[in-house]
């Protein structure tokens, strides 16, 4: 797989939010306006890209049996860095999404990416893949934030953020339609498997 392919894979084909359905908790909780959505997108991107870079750099030095504690330690460090920087330079946004910045540590998108890509591939590959994945996540956050902010303005008497599950549900349905995925699963014809029964039968007869 080339780097461009990996990037597009993370951005669209295997988008964490719309295809793998990972990291939905912070995504739905925060995306009720564009400002918060962008705040979380920037923080998540920062943590994902830098953790991938570091872990990929030291992947040969991390023993197999303690890889998870090591990954979590690195991710937690970058999350704390994001948390401190936001507190210092983006106080207002931070006050809105503080809790969801802190739980980036447990975001399956990041741990999943680190485990499946960064700990196995070289730095360039894992950083490019991380960027694609993070950009895909940010894009979903941004679009969802935009739609829901608009919905909030159009909905009278709404005191709480509106429409999280409806908007993501409709968006997922549309994306699946565009990708040609039917409710039964993939529309592509399954590859014909070689028929072993005849051979087995012949062997049995012999």
């Amino acid at each position, binding site marked *: 797989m080339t780097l461009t392919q990996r990037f597009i894979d993370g951005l669209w084909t295997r988008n964490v939010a719309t295809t793998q359905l990972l990291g939905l908790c912070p995504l739905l*909780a925060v995306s009720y306006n564009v400002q918060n959505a962008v705040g979380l997108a920037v923080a998540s991107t920062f943590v994902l890209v830098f953790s991938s870079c570091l872990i990929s750099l030291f992947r040969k030095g991390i023993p197999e*049996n303690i890889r998870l504690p090591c990954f979590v*330690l690195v991710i937690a*460090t970058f999350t704390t860095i994001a948390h401190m*920087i936001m507190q*210092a330079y983006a*106080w207002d946004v931070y006050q809105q999404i503080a*809790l969801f910045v802190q739980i980036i540590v447990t975001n399956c998108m990041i741990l999943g990416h680190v485990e499946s890509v960064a700990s196995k591939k070289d730095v360039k590959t894992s950083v490019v893949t991380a960027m694609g994945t993070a950009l895909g996540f940010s894009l979903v956050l941004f679009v969802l934030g935009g739609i829901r902010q608009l919905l909030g303005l159009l909905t009278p008497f709404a005191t709480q953020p509106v429409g999280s599950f409806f908007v993501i549900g409709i968006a997922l349905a549309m994306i699946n339609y565009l990708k040609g995925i039917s409710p039964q699963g993939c529309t592509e014809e399954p590859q014909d498997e070689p028929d072993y029964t005849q051979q087995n039968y012949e062997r049995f007869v012999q």
Partner: protein
Amino acid sequence: MKAIATLTLLALVAGCLLALLQLFTADRIEQNQRDAEEQILAGLVDSTDPEILREQGIELVNAEIRGYGGTMKILVAFRAEEILGVRVLGHGETPGFSEVLKPNDWIGNFEKQSVDEVDAVSGATITTNAVIRAVKDSVRGRKDSNP
């Protein structure tokens, strides 16, 4: 053995990195916090300077109490014997439920009613009960210190 060494080294590097960043950001974070507190108090008192407040007969009492999500920092403003108002300076309550702690919401009840009349809010019972308890404690504490 290698596992212990790797983890120790990693934790050490991470710790140093965070400590270094803390040096650079601590001042700004503290400044932001102070600005935010001043903004919260803006509708209640003209100034946070104790000298000016004493001339107006206002006394600010700080209280800390455990809420649903950690410690809440609460400030009670007294004029003579009566409560001028209550504000929450910092908290870790669940987003959404913490709406009651905003100046124009439930917490404004302390300005209109006596402490014994203020009721908890259903749905945010732990949060609001904690605030009520903190206010009652500070009233009692003040009575004890100047009888």
